[in-house]
C-alpha cells in the first residue's frame, strides 16, 4: 500500500486540493450579488478548470509509472524548512506577548543555535547587530511604533 501511495504523482494531491478549494470559492461566488459575482465566477471557474487539468495530468503521470519524477515532499527534505517555519510562528507569537526587541533577542540566538552556530561570540554579535539595525531602520528612520 505504501509503495502504491508513493507512486502517486504529487500533482494528483495538489490538483485535488486545488479543485476542492476552487469548488468552495465558486460556490461562495454564486451567493454574491450580480455585479461582484460576475468576475468572481469567471476567475474561480477558470481556477477549477486548471485544477482539474493538473489533476488529470498527475493521474496520467502516475499511470505511466515511469518513476522518473522527483519526489519533492520527502520528510527528510522538508523537515528543516517546516521547523524553520515553526520558529517564525513562535517568534511572531513572542512579539505579540513580550514585544519586538525582547522577542528578537530570544529568536536570533535560538535560530542560530538551531542552525548549528556554536560560537557564542558570533551569536551575541549577530543578535546585537540585528537589534541595533532594526532599531535604526524602523524606529529611528521610519518612526514606526514597534509591536
Amino acid at each position, binding site marked *: 500500500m505504501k509503495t502504491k501511495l508513493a507512486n502517486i504523482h*504529487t*500533482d494528483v494531491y*495538489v490538483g485535488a486540493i*486545488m479543485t476542492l478549494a476552487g469548488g468552495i*470559492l465558486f460556490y*461562495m*461566488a454564486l451567493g*454574491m*450579488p450580480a*455585479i*461582484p459575482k*460576475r*468576475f*468572481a465566477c469567471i*476567475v474561480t471557474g*477558470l*481556477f477549477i478548470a*486548471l*485544477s482539474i*487539468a*493538473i489533476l488529470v*495530468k498527475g493521474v496520467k503521470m502516475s499511470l505511466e509509472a515511469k518513476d522518473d519524477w522527483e519526489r*519533492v*515532499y520527502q520528510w*527528510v*527534505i*522538508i*523537515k*528543516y*524548512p517546516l*521547523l*524553520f*517555519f515553526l520558529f*517564525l*510562528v513562535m*517568534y*511572531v507569537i513572542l*512579539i*505579540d506577548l513580550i514585544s*519586538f526587541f525582547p522577542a*528578537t533577542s530570544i*529568536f*536570533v540566538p535560538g*535560530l*542560530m543555535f538551531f*542552525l*548549528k*552556530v556554536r560560537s557564542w561570540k*558570533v551569536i551575541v554579535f*549577530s543578535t546585537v547587530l*540585528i537589534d541595533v539595525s*532594526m532599531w535604526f*531602520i*524602523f524606529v529611528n*528612520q*521610519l*518612526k*514606526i*511604533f514597534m*509591536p
Partner: protein
Amino acid sequence: MMSETFASLFTLDVLLAWIAAIFGGMFVGALPGFSATMAIALLIPVTFGMDATPALVMLATIYTTATYGGSFTAILLHTPGTPSNVATAQEGYELTKQGRGLEAIGMSTISSVFGGVFGGIALLLIAPPLAMIALKFSSPEYFFIALFGLTIIASLSSDNMLKGIASGVFGLILGLVGLELNTAYPRYTFGFMELYSGVQLIPATLGMFSISQMMIQMERFSIKGSMEKGQVVNAGAMGNKMLPTFKELIHYIPIMIRTAILGLLIGILPGAGGDIGSWVGYNEARRGSKHKELFGKGSLEAICGSETANNAVCGGSYIPLFTLGIPGSGVAAVLMGGLIIHGLQPGSQLFITQKHIIYPIMIAYLFSNIAMGIVGVLCARGFAKIAKIPMNIIIPFVSILAIMGAYAVNCSMFDVWMTLVFGFIGYFMEKSNFPTAPAILALILGPMAERGLQSSILMAKGNVITYFLSRPLSMLFFVLTLLALFAPILAKRIMKGHEDIKTESNLD
C-alpha cells in the same frame, strides 16, 4: 525641465539612497540564492518613510547593480549570484581556473556598464513618447492591457505553462478579496475586517519572495545536516590584469553593440528576463566569434556577450512598466508595487503630472550603471569575499527584515501573519513547480482587469464584443496578447539552441 530634474537628483537623500542601492544591490547580487526581486521586495517597506524620488531611485537601481554583482561569485566561485549570471559562470570560472579571474571580472564590468548605459539611454529616449499613446486609453484598453499583462504569466513560466497560468489565476482570486469596487460588497473576507481593503501587496510579496526563499535555503540544511561554510577564492586564481587595453576594447565593442540591442529588445518583450537575455547574448557573441573553440573553455567574448545583454535587459524591462503599466518580469512586478505604494501610477500621467519624479529616476538609473562599474573596479576583491558569509547568519537577518517590513506597512500584526501564510503557500508552490511571480503579477493586474471589464460593459450598453471590436487600440492589445502567448515557445527554442551549442562546445 533639465535643471529641475538635476536639482531633485542632487539632494542628500537621493544621493545617499543611490549610493546605498549601488553597494546594496551588488552585495545582494553577489550572495548566491538571493535575487534582485527579493532585494526589492525587502526594501519596499524600508523606503516607506522616504520621499518617492529617493525611494524609487533606490529600487530601480538595485535591479541593474544586483545583476552585475552576481557575476563576481559566478566568475570566481562558479556560483551565479542571480539566474542572469549562469552563462557568465560557465565561462568565467574556466578563466579563474586559468588564473585570469580578475580579467574576467574586468570584462564583466566593462560589458555590464555598456549594456546598462545602453538600456538607460533607450529608456530615456523611448519611454516618454510611448507613454503619450496611453493618453488615448479608456476602460476597454485598460481591460486588454491587464489581459496582455496576464498573458505574461504564460511567458514567466514557459517550462510549465499550465501551472504558471494556475498560479496567475490564484493571484486573480487574491485580487478578488475585499470590498468590490462598484457595490462595496465584501468578497472572500471570511469575517476579517483587515481583509476589507484586500490582500496587501507587500505582505504577499515578502511572503512569496523572501520567507519562501528562506525555507528553500533551509533545504540545504535538511540535505547536508549543516549549512555549507562560505567559499573562499584562491588568491592566485585572480591574476593581476583586470581591464582590457584600448586595442582589446575596440575588438569587443561590436559584440557589445549587437548584444546590447538584443538585450534591450528582450527586456521590452514581456516575460523574457535577464536569464534568457544572457544566453541570447552568449549565443550572439559565439555566432560572430573567430575563436568559437574557446567557448565553454573560458572565453572573454562570451562574458562580454552575456553580461552586456543581461544588463541591457534591465533598462528594457522598465519601458513597458513605466509607459503602459505592464510589468514584464517578476522584478518589474515587484517594482510596480513600489511605484504604486509611493503614489505613482504607471502610464501617461507618470510623464505629465509626475515627471519631476520619473525623470530623476531614469537619469539616476542611467548613471548608476557607470557608478557600479567604478565600484566594481575598486572593490572587486572585496565583493568576492561576500560568498564567505555563511547562510546561518544571513537567514535570521532576512527573516526579521521581512517580518518587520510587513508590519511597517500598516503597523499591523495581521499583515505579519499574512506574510507567514504567503511564505508557507509560496514554499509549497515552489516545491510543486508553481512559479510565484505570476501570482503577484495577477494580484496587481486583477483589480485593473475587473475595473476595465465592468466599465466596458456599462459603456457598451449592449453588445460588449462589438464595442471592443470598434476600438482599434483594444484590438491591438488583443493581438499583442495572442502574440505574447507564443513568446514562451520562441524562448524555449532559443534555450534549446543554446543547449545544442553547449553540447557541441563540450564535444570540441
